[in-house]
């Protein structure tokens, strides 16, 4: 009997998705390496800003992609797509953590050498100050904090342990996405193209969930009426 080719999610699909999502990080790595070899060559005139911006952009994109995976699985009626969701979500978390770290390391109050009464603030102090003083940083930080429990409980073990509460807990991804978008909105100036485009994607993804919910309620009601 000829062996039929079957697409293996575990052996082909996941490694493929992993590699695709790693591309922005690899490209950044190449630029950082070039920058190390020949300063000024890899990341343009303002490398710190470039690194932070690149990581933030990809963090938001992968975060929205995580939400899109569930929508796509429903719309395309391909439930197996959900099996990629954890990996996409963990990549989003990775990009956002790196975004956060690079911001405080390269641009934030600590990097700027903020001082109070002539005393330079330490890393933690400067971090708290930035989060406290600057609303767009607060929003970005909130998004990241909301994602931490989701990253921790993303394993199958936690999924089993939390049972139904796992789903409830992972709804935190919605306020996290909204906070991330607010962060983008509040740091934009002069042009609202980016907040508009990402906002539109967010509206579509949220809208799809609302429609699904309404339909479900309709069905339950119809079943109850029978």
């Amino acid at each position: 009997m000829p062996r039929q080719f079957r697409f293996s999610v575990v052996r082909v699909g996941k490694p493929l998705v992993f590699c695709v999502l790693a591309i922005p990080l690899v490209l950044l790595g190449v630029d950082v390496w070039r920058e190390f070899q020949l300063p000024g060559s890899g990341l343009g005139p303002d490398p710190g800003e470039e690194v932070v911006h690149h990581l933030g952009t990809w963090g938001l994109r992968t975060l929205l992609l995580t939400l899109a995976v569930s929508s796509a699985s429903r719309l395309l009626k391909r439930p197996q797509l959900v099996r990629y969701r954890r990996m996409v979500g963990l990549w989003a978390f990775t990009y956002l953590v790196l975004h956060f770290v690079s911001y405080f390391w390269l641009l934030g109050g600590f990097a700027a050498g903020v001082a109070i009464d002539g005393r330079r603030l330490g890393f933690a102090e400067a971090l708290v100050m930035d989060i406290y003083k600057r609303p767009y940083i607060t929003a970005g930080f909130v998004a990241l904090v909301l994602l931490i429990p989701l990253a921790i409980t993303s394993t199958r073990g936690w999924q089993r342990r939390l049972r139904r509460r796992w789903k409830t807990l992972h709804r935190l991804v919605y306020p996290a996405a909204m906070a991330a978008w607010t962060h983008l909105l509040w740091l934009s100036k002069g042009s609202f193209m980016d907040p508009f485009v990402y906002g539109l994607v967010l509206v579509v993804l949220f809208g799809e969930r609302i429609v699904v919910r309404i339909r479900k309620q309709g069905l339950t009601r119809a079943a109850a009426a029978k």
Partner: protein
Amino acid sequence: MIIKRPADIRSSEITPESVYRSRRRFMRESLTAAAGAGTASLVGTPAVALPREWLAAREVKQGVPIGEEMTSERDATGYNNFYEFGTDKEDPAKYAHEMTVDPWTVNVTGQVEKPGKIGLEDMLAGIDLEERIYRLRCVEAWSMVIPWIGFPVKKLLDKFQPSSDARYVEFKTLHRPSEMRGQRSFFSNIDWPYVEGLRLDEANHPLAIFAVGMYGKLMPNQNGAPIRLVVPWKYGFKSIKSIVEIRLTRRQPRNTWNVLQPSEYGFYANVNPNVDHPRWSQASERRFPTTLFKPNRIPTRMFNGYDDVASLYKGLDLSRHY
């Protein structure tokens, strides 16, 4: 000393100054004659932008080095905020060539004895050019050191004789959406044209210049060709680019960023490490050239290190008038 840099066109191709000047004079005279209005004021001169050989034919007094490393021409002409061409730093270098700077006229109006619309070359006639090596501190906490070519603002204003009522100067950038894609952008929330202003005594300070060139060359479009303001003790957004109108006023004019976000951008916008921008610290700056492994972060100085101007602000609370 003369810093005539070699032109990138062969000298044989250059029309001798005497020839083109007489050509222009001929055109001007015939135009004026045709219009039948040979007014004595500066009004009515035809618009002629700066020809490429204009700068080469002039003597430029060399600038005084400030003992700080100069930013590379590549960075200074490739990393710009000129939202008329887009909000990315690379956008101006990519798209500013779409702007026509030839011919160019500047309209001088308001509280002046001799108002008028005047072609750039005529406007600059008789004004000596000099090189000024200045620090440029952007409100976004990066900075450059740039050799500008220009002349004091006062020299030009005096030509038009500000009246005794004049207390402020308003400047306006070209508004031409067909050539400035940022002005066409649906997502822009800026009310074009870009406007800026100075108090008249600030404008008359010897450090405030109009620049028509940089790095020994005519001003590149992305840096505000053909004529821009450079006020080195203020944040970069005050140094308005591609100026088409200068208006002397009695009242404080509006300035674009202040209208957009008054809590973040004031009218004065003096460089001040003690007053933070709400979104970031102004205590230090990233001085170009900067690299990832050598960020070249330096403390920001009051008035960007131009202490001379402090006397302009005596009695003014600079934390309120940021």
